[in-house]
């Protein structure tokens, strides 16, 4: 499912960046920072908002930079890895937006309808956070796989055909 490419060490570093940034966002921001800010929710309830804010900023940067790379004169190896990251981050942004909407709507409905605290937590956790966390784990696995491919000078086949260039060996 992947093709070998003879990438230079500099190309490997540039191809790894989108996956590295994507993974640090998922693992550090979405898991560790989220757990820490959620832990102090009773004292600083707004601190947890730093997680979606940071995540949207990082994802937006990857999407923007991928377009710049695609329009630039980088090698196919670098372009292909940024394209993989772009596609993944696009889906992740949709997922994050949907989760934020579900949680905001749920909190608003809970306030309007006077739902109990336990019921609200169960509903928002089950319908909002749980699917997001499961998707997050899948994305971490995919991100790690892309990192492995970039480190070993490999390219996903479907991307190669999309970003065709004669230097593929």
């Amino acid at each position, binding site marked *: 499912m992947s093709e070998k490419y003879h990438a230079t060490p500099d190309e490997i570093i540039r191809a790894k*960046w*989108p996956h*590295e*940034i994507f993974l*640090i*966002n998922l693992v*550090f*921001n979405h898991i*560790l*920072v989220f757990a*820490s*800010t959620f*832990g*102090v929710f*009773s*004292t*600083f309830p707004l601190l947890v908002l*730093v997680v979606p804010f*940071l995540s949207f900023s*990082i994802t937006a*940067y990857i999407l923007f*930079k991928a377009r710049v790379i695609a329009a630039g004169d980088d090698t196919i190896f670098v372009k292909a890895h940024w394209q993989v990251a772009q596609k993944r981050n696009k889906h992740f942004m949709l997922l994050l937006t949907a989760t934020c909407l579900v949680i905001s709507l749920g909190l608003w409905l809970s306030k309007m309808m*006077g739902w*109990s*605290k*336990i019921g609200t937590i169960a509903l928002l956790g089950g319908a909002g956070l749980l699917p997001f966390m499961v998707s997050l784990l899948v994305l971490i696995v995919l991100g790690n796989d892309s990192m492995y491919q970039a480190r070993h000078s490999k390219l996903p086949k479907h991307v190669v055909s999309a970003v065709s260039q004669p230097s593929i060996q």
Partner: protein
Amino acid sequence: MSLEKKIYWGVGIFSFVVIFGAFLIPGDRPEQEDLPWHIEHPTPDSVRIFGLTLGQSTPAQAEARFKEQAEPSLFKSPEGKLAAELFFEQVNLAGLRSRIVLTADIPETELHTMYERGLRMAGTGSGKKITLTPEDVERLRATPISSLTYMPGVKVDEMLFKKRFGEPQQIIKERKSGAIHWLYPQHGLDITLGGSEKPVLQYVAPAQFSKLIQPLLENGERLTP
């Protein structure tokens, strides 16, 4: 240093700062007012518990105090007695999760009018539960609290009660259920202990205490003089 490198390290360092910062934030210290044995008497015949003065504070003030919204309901006992109550499903006091029920001091005649106006009626294990109209809910939230029932989420050792509240002035055992009531008339407090059950602490104004223990005296057995 490339921008990607700056983002990577920036996110990493920021995450560590937040994680370790969260550890350094001191936990909530239990306030005196959150403790069930911290009973104050603003006047000789009044009781102040959890920062609420019975007979003066309203359920709306209790909601602000507990930072929770209560569920208002009207209950009708099998004997036909009506009581307007507000139920807090989960309140965190002194790090202990508990449930709290407030009874509003509404005259019997008005309770009957509320009952007639009720929107929905549902059967409960012991009587009926009536859903009140929004206007009656507002009235309920603005009426002073006559009694507060505190149900801690854990089983508490009897020795702890003795240590914190002192020796009860009276102990009455219910004939039917076998539940034991430790009575502290000076505090308007009735602690119900039911063997393996979790304890229930009911606070009323000392002047109302005789009303509280009347049914107990009629249907119970006095274990202490």
